[in-house]
């Protein structure tokens, strides 16, 4: 158990660092756009002062752009906040869809991220007792693995396939060529084992099925250890 907790701690730091770096990059981009757009407005004002006729649509475009990017910044900060709070309680019941959506959004800040669509066919809330931070880490690693083969111009579909065997099946597929050679990596496998998550792969069409248990003995045990660990 000590090894497992060490692994979780090291991976948590790495994951947290990676996500924070990508969020800060996203926010810098948002601020850079706002800064340049307001600068452009100021350039236009100077031209108007010199007697140049300006199209109102140019000014409207600038103000709309600033408003849009402020909203993009707010959305990013909201995701950052959600991510930060996912370590509040080491083990808890989480909505799998929410966790998946948040992780997809966080991974979307990476320049090589593919477009991801999530489909929950029956709109049922899929709550699981898990370590939220570690589950996010696992989903993030799986997404990164698939982004490598699909690329930034490709699409990935994740479907809530069925709820059976005391857990939820997520089916990951792509209209592009999804390559799963070398999956799962040792790190993904170890993270999945801690969470009790299992994988199965289809060869044709290439699909990855991820089974997330509603709860497992390992998670309950880990919860006790992490609770104790967090107070020492």
């Amino acid at each position: 158990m000590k090894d497992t907790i060490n692994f979780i701690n090291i991976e948590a730091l790495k994951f947290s660092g990676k996500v924070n770096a990508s969020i800060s990059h996203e926010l810098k981009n948002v601020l850079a756009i706002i800064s340049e757009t307001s600068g452009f407005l100021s350039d236009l004002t100077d031209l108007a002062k010199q007697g140049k006729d300006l199209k109102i649509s140019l000014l409207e475009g600038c103000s709309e752009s600033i408003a849009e990017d402020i909203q993009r910044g707010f959305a990013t900060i909201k995701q950052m906040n959600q991510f930060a709070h996912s370590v509040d309680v080491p083990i808890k019941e989480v909505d799998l869809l929410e966790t998946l959506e948040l992780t997809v959004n966080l991974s979307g800040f990476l320049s090589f991220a593919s477009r991801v669509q999530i489909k929950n066919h029956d709109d049922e809330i899929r709550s699981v007792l898990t370590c939220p931070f570690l589950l996010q880490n696992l989903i993030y690693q799986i997404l990164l693995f698939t982004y490598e083969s699909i690329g930034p111009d490709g699409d990935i579909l994740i479907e809530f396939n069925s709820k059976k065997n005391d857990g939820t099946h997520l089916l990951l597929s792509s209209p592009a060529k999804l390559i799963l050679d070398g999956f799962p990596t040792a790190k993904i496998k170890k993270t999945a084992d801690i969470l009790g998550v299992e994988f199965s792969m289809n060869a044709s069409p290439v699909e990855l099925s991820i089974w997330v248990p509603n709860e497992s003995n390992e998670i309950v045990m880990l919860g006790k250890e992490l609770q104790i660990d967090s107070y020492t």
Partner: protein
Amino acid sequence: MTDNKKIHLLMVDDEVKFLETITKRLKLKFFDITSATNGVDAIEAAKKGQFDVAVIDLQMPGIDGVHVLETLKKNHKYLEVIILSGHATIETAVDCTKIGAFKILEKPCEFSNLVDAIKEAYEKKLKKKFEHDQLRIKKIEALALGQSPLGILKELAKMDKDEK
């Protein structure tokens, strides 16, 4: 004082809105600009156009900025490259400087700082080209004294090839 109209600029950034807005602002300053949203397009654009200065982002899909910098510096000996990125670490800044980046600017950056950096980079390019041309003239003069007309032509052709 540098005439901005003479500066052929290549702007590369995968953040389309940022690229569009900064291009509009630089156009108001009369720079001649070509823009690209990824590394592959940037390298292709550089093959087709004669650019003085390139401003490139680091994190881009496909080929990243460091690789673009490397390729541009290898294939275009007078081109000066400025890195404009929200993702530059000390390590990448050191790497980029070693590869030959003229300056590393952090996003968001003051527009006037970017304009100044572009002008400085252009002046450096002119100076480098001037020094190289002076050296070339000296070489041609030396050749004219000691070579046959055919030998001079052969040497000039070799120098032209090296120039590319």
